């Protein structure tokens, strides 16, 4: 009775946190992520107005200049302005990222949902396909497919779609299995709705939460993968400005650090931005994390 050091009774006057404090605590990083992502979207859209150079303008006389007032991020081996190319590179990276993730997300979700709802041999066929694709290291498989199809943005996107849909299919499959046995689904069946309507109107809207989180978190992932493929020479055709291929060009220029560093920093910020945002969305959708 003499020891009061860890008494359970706490001061009643502990203030309940203010709204702003709670928001910062819970969504502080997500807000930073959102700001970064929005900033990059703005940059991608308004790139031509943010620079006085053209991304493809070759100026051999001024090649490999260090950062200066004229060229903020310096120039590359062909004398092109690195700052301008980073800005324009955002267009390619963000566009491919969104296309790959949204298309793979839609396709994978549909296939996974159908598999979970139909069961039987349909489920087996679709889910074994996902297993098959997931057997391979994704970047190697994408590399092989892209190489087989030929160099180019479209072919690389197709290659990435092939390796990207299975994770969405798996997630959608497990989400739909959870929802399928809920009583509201049975209620919809008792009313007599046909299976397609039950799946699309009742089950899927209740399964999208984790899928949205995966889409957001995966955008950064897709951008890295696409940059990686470009780095290996498969993504875009030169002279299109793209971060991965820019890093490849600066790979051996050790003294001219700016050629590879700035596109690398661009990839870093975009990926961090999407990850913070994705985490925030996950917290927002997860009722357990919302308590306080």
């Amino acid at each position: 009775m003499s020891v009061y050091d860890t008494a359970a009774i706490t001061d009643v006057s502990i203030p309940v946190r203010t709204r702003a404090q709670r928001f910062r605590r819970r969504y502080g990083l997500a807000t930073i992520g959102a700001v970064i992502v929005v900033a990059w979207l703005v940059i991608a859209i308004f790139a031509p107005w943010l620079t006085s150079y053209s991304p493809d303008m070759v100026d051999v006389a001024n090649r490999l200049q260090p950062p200066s007032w004229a060229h903020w991020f310096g120039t590359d081996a062909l004398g092109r302005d690195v700052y301008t190319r980073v800005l324009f590179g955002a267009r390619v990276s963000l566009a491919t990222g969104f296309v790959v993730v949204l298309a793979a997300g839609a396709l994978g979700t549909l296939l996974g949902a159908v598999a979970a709802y139909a069961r039987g041999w349909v489920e087996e066929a679709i889910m074994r396909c996902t297993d098959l694709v997931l057997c391979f290291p994704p970047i190697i498989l994408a590399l092989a497919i892209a190489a087989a199809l030929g160099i180019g943005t479209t072919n690389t996107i197709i290659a990435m779609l092939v390796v990207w849909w299975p994770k969405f299919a798996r997630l959608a499959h497990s989400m739909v299995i959870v929802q399928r046995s809920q009583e509201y689904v049975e209620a919809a069946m008792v009313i007599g709705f046909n299976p397609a309507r039950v799946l699309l109107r009742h089950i899927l809207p209740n399964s999208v939460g984790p899928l949205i989180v995966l889409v957001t978190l995966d955008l950064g992932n897709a951008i890295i993968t696409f940059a990686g493929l470009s780095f290996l020479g498969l993504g875009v055709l030169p002279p299109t400005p793209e971060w991965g291929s820019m890093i490849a060009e600066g790979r051996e220029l050790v003294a001219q650090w700016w050629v590879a560093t700035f596109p690398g920093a661009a990839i870093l910020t975009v990926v961090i931005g999407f990850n913070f945002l994705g985490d925030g969305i996950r917290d927002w959708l997860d009722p357990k994390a919302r308590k306080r």
Partner: protein
Amino acid sequence: MTPSAITNREAESMQPSSGAPPTLDVRDLRTSFFTDEGIVKAVDGVSFTVREGEALGIVGESGSGKSVTALSLMRLLDEPARIVGGEVLFQGRDILRSTTSQLRAIRGASIAMVFQDPMTSLNPVLKIAKQMIETMVTHGDYTGQSAEKRAVDLLGSMGVPTPERAVDSYPHQFSGGMRQRVMLAMGMSNEPALLIADEPTTALDVTIQAQILELLRELNQKFGTSIVLISHDLGVIARVCSRTLVMYGGEIVEEGVTERLLSDPRHPYTWALINAVPRIDEDRPADRRLASIEGQPPDPLNLPSGCRFAPRCPFRIAKCDEHPELLEIKPGRKTRCWVTQAGTVLPARAAVKPASGSAPKTESSSRAAEEPLLALRNVVKHFPLARRGFMDRPRVVHAIDDVSFDVFRGETVGLVGESGCGKSTLARLIVRIHRPDSGEIRVGGQDIAQASYEAIRPLRRQMQMVFQDPYASLNPRMKVAQILGEPLQFHGVTKGAGETRSRIEELLRTVGLNPRSAERFPHEFSGGQRQRISIARAIALNPEFIVADEPISALDVNIQAQIINLMLELQERLGLTYLFIAHDLAVVRHISDRIVVLYLGKVMEVAPTDDLFRHPLHPYTRFLISAVPVPDAAVERDRPVLKLAGELPSAISPPSGCRFRTRCPMAQPICAAETPPLIAHAPGHLAACHFASAMAHVPGAALHMESQVDSRMAAP
């Protein structure tokens, strides 16, 4: 228990100050939840004592603060909950002011706790032995070897069969009832002075509940362990506890000796709790409506400043705007009510039945000629299981095997049985969520057993379903208007948005909800309100027949009474026919015209309700009836309960012949060899038992059958 023992106990409880200090002395305990929306005073100034060897019951509806009280006693609360004041003196030591190491020495050693959910309170990756030994060794009273031996002994004394093998099993290898026994064995392993049991039987079947309650009584009486038993079920409390607290809105509103409290409640809330449940030991009243109090439990963020029960209280007076204190009105009897403190006696049970009664239903004996609304003939449903290995033989769950019965227009048929007996599967076969393997399901003469989705669709308008879990049965992403409007438009019941709109409002009014509820989402409603929405959806298409799958088992007793009354009223107004599935026999008896008893996928007995309860022909039915606790301590203490041995056998390999034979005290060799046919032993009274005709000649009610069974067993 002899009558003199009861009076002794009463005498004790009337003089709380006499003798040794109490085991547990709680003074002005206050626990609050600091939520984003504000401070919720979950426990608001609770004081009580538990004497050595006493069994104290705490009763109340969900949200009343009873579980938070239990957790506060052990300091097991998580953020955002905090204990903000009071003392919890356990054997003289204040638990709230102990250090965590002192607390650890008390937890599990001197105070043990058993929780509601036996599925999650054992560690799934550790063997039973390991978990039990750990508890004993940690507190230093046993070494590894002696602890292992004691674990086996304890499991045996808690009624776990083959305890030597059980200790080497994992929790998932046990049923819910067995796990609760393991929890009790673990709790008792260090011979605690106090056992706190928080709704220990709520997740269990009645037959298993009866076994566990018996065990608790034994622990209390044989070992002198003090017990705090928390439950929403007055029958459970009556069976075990000598003294009872009633909680409402975070406060104790009444306290007294259990017998007196139940026979003569002195708080209107207690009165309402007692009258909201139908009793299995009384004759069924002609009017089947239950006395229910209106309204919902108070909003914990916004408690009334006066008496917290006043907004729902049928006896409220002007003074109730002031907050009453918990005062002693007689020795050992406290109440928090201005009305009863002034000496008013609350009316007896019979006097409060709603005056507007429905005419008693005509028990139709001439039903044979009538065409049944629903006819099941030899319905079979087996679910295939995944093979465990490539060489494994295919296994199936025999969910429903050869089930036949009829439901006639306008009647309520109750379907009862333990969980796992196939009740819910049968419901889903009838509404064709599942397709039966064979047999006929005739609705209005048309066989829908194998009909296609499209072929059944028109019939769906005649036949709807109400589900068990009000939190899962409404699509959380749809507004109420959409939930109710969808079926209307889909089946073309209403044309145009305006007509749909007005029909939705009409439906909401019919089930007693505000028409403005249409614009809200399901999560904005309480459990009882959601169940009303679910019922509104079921009646939206003007069906003749509704399958209700445990529609009230997830609700508090007062809300249960409201929903039953609503269903009865709808039946009267709309001429509905119900198939009412439940495990609560008292409720089923109260509202059903006929009852079907299901065991392991087979029909055991079918009979008109009164016949079934007066002359049950199947031994299983007798066990079921006997297992139901009665909320009357005087009856409950002395009532011999028929102990049904063991658990439901696996439906993967059901017993040959009669499926009940493995647990039946009357079983003979013939029961294993031949499946007893379901045949009529009296008009409308069918039973599937080789000895049913012999049982029919045994007079007397089910509650006094033990000697009859014994004599039957001795006879051959």
